[in-house]
């Protein structure tokens, strides 16, 4: 015989019918009706898919960024998920532990959102406006360039080099950003110019 007894079977056997029915009458029987089996709702439904490249190492894995909202359509968009692009020849949809967690870097609590300035000797950053920050920078650049630009060397050869201001370029910016940066930095005569390639 089936050793698992159905509830009704048990009631018959135990003769506890009275108790049980009265409980049933009090509506306790409902407790048994369990939530239907279901899987979690698929979270990418109705998101926007955008193809991008992982920002970390130079394997340059293809990634798919899923956002709520569509930037291309001029909407405000926030990243909800990132995973590998299965069509990409190099990573074939796979991602490493860094790439698989890219979303948390985009949404990191330590992401910068406003220009800030730390005054000499101060123990904190204070918020500032882009205007103030950029004007300050431009002024500092011009003053130093005018003061320290080396126009000719001892031999009188024009050298037009500016050594007292330095610029470290990034390692994850686009080629386009890099080219614009190059133009700006070189046109000023800065030679203390370098990037992450050295490390």
């Amino acid at each position, binding site marked *: 015989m089936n050793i*698992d007894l159905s509830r009704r079977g048990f009631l018959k056997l*135990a003769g506890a019918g009275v108790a049980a029915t009265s409980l049933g009458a009090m509506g306790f029987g409902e407790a048994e009706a369990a939530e239907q089996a279901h899987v979690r709702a698929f979270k990418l439904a109705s998101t926007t898919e955008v193809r991008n490249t992982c920002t970390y190492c130079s394997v340059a894995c293809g990634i798919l960024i899923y956002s709520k909202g569509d930037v291309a359509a001029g909407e405000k968009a926030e990243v909800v998920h990132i995973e590998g692009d299965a*069509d990409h020849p190099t990573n074939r949809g796979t991602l490493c532990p860094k790439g698989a967690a890219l979303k948390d870097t985009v949404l990191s609590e330590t992401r910068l959102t406003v220009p800030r300035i730390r005054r000499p000797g101060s123990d904190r950053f204070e918020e500032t406006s882009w205007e103030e920050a950029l004007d300050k920078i431009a002024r500092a650049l011009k003053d130093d360039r005018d003061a320290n630009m080396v126009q000719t060397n001892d031999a009188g050869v024009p050298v037009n080099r500016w050594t007292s201001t330095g610029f470290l370029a990034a390692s994850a910016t686009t080629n386009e950003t890099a080219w614009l940066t190059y133009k700006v930095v070189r046109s000023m005569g800065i030679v203390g110019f370098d990037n992450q390639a050295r490390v």
Partner: protein
Amino acid sequence: MTMDPNLDSPRTAVSNPPIQPMKANLGAGDVVRASAMPNLPKPERELTKVAKLIDVSKCIGCKACQSACAEWNDTVPEVEHNVGLYENPHDLTPDMFTLMRFSEYENPETGDFEWLIRKDGCMHCEDPGCLKACPAPGAIVQYSNGIVDFIHENCIGCGYCVTGCPFDIPRVSKTDHKSYKCTLCSDRVAVGQGPACAKACPTQAIVFGAKEDMIEHANMRVADLKSRGYENAGIYDPEGVGGTHVFYVLHHADKPQLYSDLPEDPRISPVVRGWKGMTKTIGLAAIGAAAVGSILHGLFARANRVSAEEEREAEHLVESSVPVRSEEA
């Protein structure tokens, strides 16, 4: 490479997820077993059995699976301390459904050092101990494709699943008091996607598909390992639990315990079987019998009454008894 999500199987981990809304292809109708629900109607359709194969010989222990798992399931594992090990978090948690376990092994035969790395997590047993142990109707279900899933609305947090599991997998949350473990990304599988870990795995040490295809793939891997001198390479798909829907290729299949104590011959503990089987039945029967017995006795045997005679005897006894004075004592 994206598969038609309406194909129930085989599914590929290496495809891009759909973004158009679609109906989950895995639901109540596909449940073959549910905890504490003995008389379940047989599902009208039978899905192809799926499986996740973990080839430890290809695994580089990069934890992409852990990362992808947390991202997909929106869990936030705690930032712990380093305790001198590579395992982080240090164990499975309600927020970390899978974990790379590392063991350093000096092979006595070859004299070589080996770093054995195993992805730990729910094995999705064909005969799930958690489901057997669970007292809450429908809190643990098994779909016809083999996935064992927790339905958290029904979970009462008693921890019986922990007791029932032969692999020490489920973890009960201290915050919402519900039990958590790998779902084999049932939500992804339901729309024709493979689990997040299998898709992310850089070396494809984790692959996902129809179980028979996975077995075939595993056999190829075993052959390759044998050709590289691992005579004992083999598949870990333990019989004791009726086989699993997450299984391994091991270079030392003869010694699974080398891989951070992977059980040699896992099975649902006889103690648990006893508890959930005989005890349950015979216990209830005994209680029922006792109740019925007493009722019958009550009905048919005469009650044990005190007679008026005995009341008088009592009064007489009281009168005749000489009070003992304390000072005389």
